[in-house]
């Protein structure tokens, strides 16, 4: 949480769909929470599941991974690999006791500005409600 008690969310967005979708939300003047810190990656398949673990360790209150819908990947199959890996990671985090509301994954295409808004609202709300996990933080970082 930042100083004003707002959750910090790290969002990994794929360059071709979700990043453009978030961009569309901006240009269409869709209002959504500003807690999101976007990291643009070329494809969700590029996301090492340890990115998520590392973000949580470094004090993120929630992590969002968003990419193209299945079948729409710019690289044909990157999001299929991501779905498998990050689905496993979500199960594992939940099993170890990290609140499942801290990690979300979504498909947002370049034309879904409104869906992007819903996804962000849900992620921020969940991160706000999620149980504290102070012990998992590597060090205190002011964002």
């Amino acid at each position, binding site marked *: 949480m930042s100083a004003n008690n707002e959750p910090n969310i790290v969002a990994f967005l794929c360059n071709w769909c979700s990043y453009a979708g978030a961009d569309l939300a901006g240009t269409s003047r869709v209002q959504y929470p500003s807690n999101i810190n976007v990291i643009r990656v070329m494809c969700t398949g590029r996301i090492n599941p340890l990115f998520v673990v590392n973000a949580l*360790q470094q004090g993120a209150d929630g992590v969002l991974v968003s990419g193209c819908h299945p079948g729409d990947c710019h690289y044909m199959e990157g999001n299929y690999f991501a779905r498998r890996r990050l689905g496993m990671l*979500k199960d594992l985090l939940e099993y170890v006791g990290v609140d499942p509301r801290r990690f979300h994954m979504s498909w947002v295409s370049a034309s879904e500005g409104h869906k992007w808004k819903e996804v962000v609202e849900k992620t921020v709300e969940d991160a706000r409600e999620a149980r504290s996990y102070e012990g998992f933080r590597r060090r205190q970082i002011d964002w």
Partner: protein
Amino acid sequence: MELEKLRETAAEIAARDDVKYLIGWKKGSYGYRVAPAFAEDAEGASDFIFSPLCTANLATYLTLVEKLPLPRGQEPDKRKVALMVKGCDSRAVTQLLVEKGIHREEVIIIGCPCPGMVDPDLLNKKYPETEETAELKWDNDGFVIVRDGEETKVPREELLDEKCQLCRYPNPVVSDIMLDDPVKAWEPVEDEGVKEIEEKAVEGRWDYWQQEFSNCIRCYSCRNVCPLCYCQDCILDRQNPDWVYRSVNFSENTAFNIARAFHLAGRCIECGECERVCPANIPLGKINRKLAREVRDKYGFEPGLDPDAEPFQASYKPDDPEDFIL
């Protein structure tokens, strides 16, 4: 299994010209100890054994060998490595074949059908170790402990290792030579350890693992003993990027354990070696088995059965479950 037959076969194979060495088990220095053994000739194989104490997974040694670059003009050693495997070890070998960690023509696999191993900790607790050499044998329906010439019969359930209670593949899935007739597979028990954690709420799980992981001393024994942890450039040794810091605290211990378990998702063959060697007695098997079960139930994939399969994390199915996606 007859000891004579085992030693005869072992000696025959170790003596072959195209075999570099044979890896098996031999009696340890005292008590119940059993040690891995390497035989380069027939004589070296004369003390090989196979008993309920041979828990070690020898497939580890296939990838532990340091492969140095060859000096110019020198021919590579193309001789094979022979290896004795139980059911679970053979799955590790198959998984290595899938990942091309080893090649089929480089190994000779000697299959030992396994009626179940004992839990060494439980054995030491119930029948304390002596300095004299003690032995264990399989009986029709249990184990026989031989100490100071005295035989004690113990029912199977009393000492059977947890991983063997859950075992579904007691017979080697891949082998060149089988030392005995296949044993009859038994009904695996329900996985109480995993179930117990699953029944907890998220808070309870966190507290449970916090307790366990805070004991971790980060010796990396679990990684070193694992037959499938063989990356030459392991993320735990890497300094840039520094995925997991070296400091021993709860944050890093948790990250390390998550990373270790995750790297084995869809690859772990549940040989239970990590849990056996852990000096802090962290129930690593409970994480590995949970992930293995998720992979089996949700994705219909089981590692270490088919040498021609695609690796789990390097493949996908268009209809993989996606109920977790917003």
